[in-house]
């Protein structure tokens, strides 16, 4: 009787009842490795997209990324026109770009703000155009134009934003 009981016990060990749990744990381990690699790859692609696109938008030719198209009323000194920013998605992922332009006085107070946004596919070019309607009295006070550029990518999970102050005489915000 004792012999048969011990035999049953050994059979039970040999069948390894814990093997199923071990396999599940091993599979979960592999799943976590895959998740980690996926995050690294996604992050790398997002980083590349953001940096390349920001560099090509802000500093491609060394000049100002802002262009002003419009006219000034000589009698009142008022500006009416559009501010445009040329964009390029130089990366590998879809990205959303938002541009925010603030005009500040010499004391740093905000005189005017305009913004625009656009979604760009990889490799595509685009322009964000923002209407500008400045009265003469405000136009005279503009000292600095702050160009705020925000790029979001990887399903809006990663973002890069940069605020570049441009003296009004260069950027076209105040002349």
């Amino acid at each position, binding site marked *: 009787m004792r012999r048969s009981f011990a035999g049953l016990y050994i059979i039970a060990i040999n069948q390894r009842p814990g093997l199923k749990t071990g396999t599940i744990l091993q599979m*979960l381990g592999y799943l976590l490795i895959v998740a980690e690699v996926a995050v690294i790859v996604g992050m790398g692609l997002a980083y590349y997209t953001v940096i390349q696109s920001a560099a090509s938008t802000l500093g491609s030719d060394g000049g100002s990324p802002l262009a002003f198209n419009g006219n000034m009323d000589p009698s009142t000194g008022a500006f009416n026109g559009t501010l445009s920013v040329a964009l390029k998605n130089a990366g590998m992922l879809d990205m959303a770009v938002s541009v925010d332009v603030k005009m500040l006085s010499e004391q740093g107070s905000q005189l005017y703000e305009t913004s625009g946004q656009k979604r760009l596919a990889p490799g595509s070019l685009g322009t964000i155009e923002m209407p500008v309607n400045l009265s003469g009295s405000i136009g005279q006070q503009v000292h600095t134009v702050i160009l705020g550029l925000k790029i979001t990518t990887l399903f809006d999970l*990663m973002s890069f934003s940069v605020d570049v102050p441009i003296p009004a005489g260069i950027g076209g915000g105040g002349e």
Partner: protein
Amino acid sequence: MASILKTGLWFVTHNPIKILKAVLSFFLYALLLVVLPWALINWAQGNPQISGMLDMVRSTAGIDVISIATTIMILGLLVSVAVLIKGLTDRWSVLNLSCEVASTLLHLTIVLLVLGAGEIGSLGVISRTLQVSGPSQPSFMLDMRFAALAFVAIAGLNIVLAFARFYQARSERKRSIGGIVQNLLHL
């Protein structure tokens, strides 16, 4: 022998494949996290152009690449040792579990250090105002919180998994020891 089994300090010196795997893992981690940063630091310091660029990054953006690389080297050495000990011990041992948890946490620290450009607590957000000459300074913010939180979650799951493996290995060992004892009693 009994005390070694009791404390869980059981080195698998009898399994050459496992030893080889552990040593190879150690060298791989040491190569990636110690030798590579060390070589990059030496190369950067020996190259005036790169050295000047790194100095400029440190002075304008406050990101000290050399200091980050040095910290990675130190943490990388600890990770390599933890991986080596983990590889040389059985899954049921407390030492194996401790090394697995330690290597996971150290690995996470390295990742957060890189994502935060030297600031682990920023959780993947790099926000700096550039110190340049002129009336107003440009500023930038790189938000990689998603990646940082994903790595934290993965590390947490890895630790939970390590505990599950540990308890599963312990229960299997108990069963097998029970079987051996039963066999010995039977003989």
